[in-house]
């Protein structure tokens, strides 16, 4: 029995020692991403692969498509002179900040809301799309808006998203179930695992577009301004992206892309 306790204790201590290993706060002023982009002559964008209309990998063609993708191409054209000087890597709500900090992607354009908390970890460009959190339900559902998410109801959300935190504040009585990504969360809604799926309306429109049995209800109850995120401290890159974004907007290209994908 003594040996039991001793070994358990030693293991736990070993884990704690790992915890004591001084933590260096990551982020601030690390590698210059702007120079890296110049050197590799392309921009590596982190994009969603499971979000219809914004970033969606079409399993039949293997190509990623959507608003974020087209915008990334347009930005590359402004910044590097060729819209094909881009590479796309998949990110999820949970992986996008780590991937940015790892240097695996140069910029994240993945339905990412600019928030005060996130600004502490990454830098954002100007708003490129204005979304708002809403609810997606099966047509004919009793849920007509956020006020119907009472005790006994279940709301589905995605781990690491602002909407998972918001919904707990706005509808404290509902049980929130969180999934790894939007694909899984929507599969869960279709499987009847919850009464409503909550996230930004822009993403929900994509799901309603995919399966006409589902609809958005109750309008938006938050404001979710999307920005392009880069690793903290890369102000030069943020400036360049903002300039390119402005050029894309001024040339009318932005409206063209927007009307191609967002029809609501």
């Amino acid at each position: 029995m003594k040996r039991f306790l001793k070994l358990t204790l030693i293991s736990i201590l070993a884990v704690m020692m790992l915890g004591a290993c001084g933590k260096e706060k990551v982020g601030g002023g690390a590698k210059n991403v702007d120079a890296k982009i110049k050197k590799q002559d392309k921009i590596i964008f982190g994009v969603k692969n499971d979000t219809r209309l914004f970033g969606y990998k079409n399993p039949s063609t293997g190509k990623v498509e959507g608003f974020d993708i087209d915008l990334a191409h347009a930005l590359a054209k402004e910044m590097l002179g060729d819209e094909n000087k881009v590479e796309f890597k998949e990110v999820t709500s949970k992986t996008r900040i780590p991937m940015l900090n790892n240097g695996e992607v140069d910029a994240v354009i993945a339905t990412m809301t600019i928030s005060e908390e996130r600004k502490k970890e990454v830098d954002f460009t100007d708003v490129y799309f204005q979304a708002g959190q809403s609810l997606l339900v099966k047509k004919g559902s009793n849920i007509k808006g956020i006020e119907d998410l009472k005790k006994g109801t279940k709301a589905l959300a995605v781990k690491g998203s602002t909407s998972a935190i918001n919904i707990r504040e706005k509808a404290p009585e509902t049980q929130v179930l969180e999934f790894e990504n939007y694909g899984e969360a929507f599969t869960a809604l279709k499987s009847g695992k919850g009464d409503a799926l909550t996230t930004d309306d822009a993403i929900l429109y994509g799901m309603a577009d995919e399966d006409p049995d589902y609809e958005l209800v109750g309008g938006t109850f938050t404001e979710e301004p999307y920005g392009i995120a880069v690793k903290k401290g890369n102000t030069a890159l943020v400036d360049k992206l903002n300039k390119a974004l402005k050029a894309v907007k001024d040339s009318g290209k932005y409206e063209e892309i927007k009307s191609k994908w967002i029809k609501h």
Partner: protein
Amino acid sequence: MDFSILTDNFGLYLEGFKNTIIASVIALVSSFFLGVIVAVMRISPVKVLNWLGTGYVEFFRNIPVLIITFFFYFGLASIGIELDGLKAGTTALSIYTSAFIAEAIRAGIMSVPKGQMEAARSSGLSYNQSMRLIILPQAIKIVIPSLGNQFINLVKNSSILGVVAGLDLMYQADLISARAFVTFDVYLFVAMFYLVLTIPLSLGVHYLEKRLARSH
């Protein structure tokens, strides 16, 4: 290491810990019974049962437990059968583990000398009675350490509940880290909760293995 993460979120950790234990214990009991049935089928003189048992063991041993979990969570729902994450995960764990337990018990049965079955049969017991009263009790005693190992695997594998919103430790850890904006410390505490369960279990298994080796 920031202990305020543990104290601030103690309720969530505890709920996760509780659900991890519930899922593991229920899955242990049900996989044990399933495993015994399948093991008996595998050595049964009836050919069809034999094939079914072998097919069951080979199939479930060779596919990831995650896929069985998805089947019970998403797959069954697509044909109208509703299970929540905790139930679907526990069912999947039971089925997956039962394949391993069946193999362990079969090995145990094989290690009981053949003469015992013959003696039991000639003293007037039926095949089923001899199996239930004479062979199985001895076989299970022999395989207790390997059942212990399967229980440890069960506790570890129960972490897949987190992927289907099963409210276990892993799931709560995600919620805590999303809120606290740290991951490192949150997961270290989770690791400790698991170790508190698994280390005593492994030491117990070591002890039983040694004792069994000595008694032979």
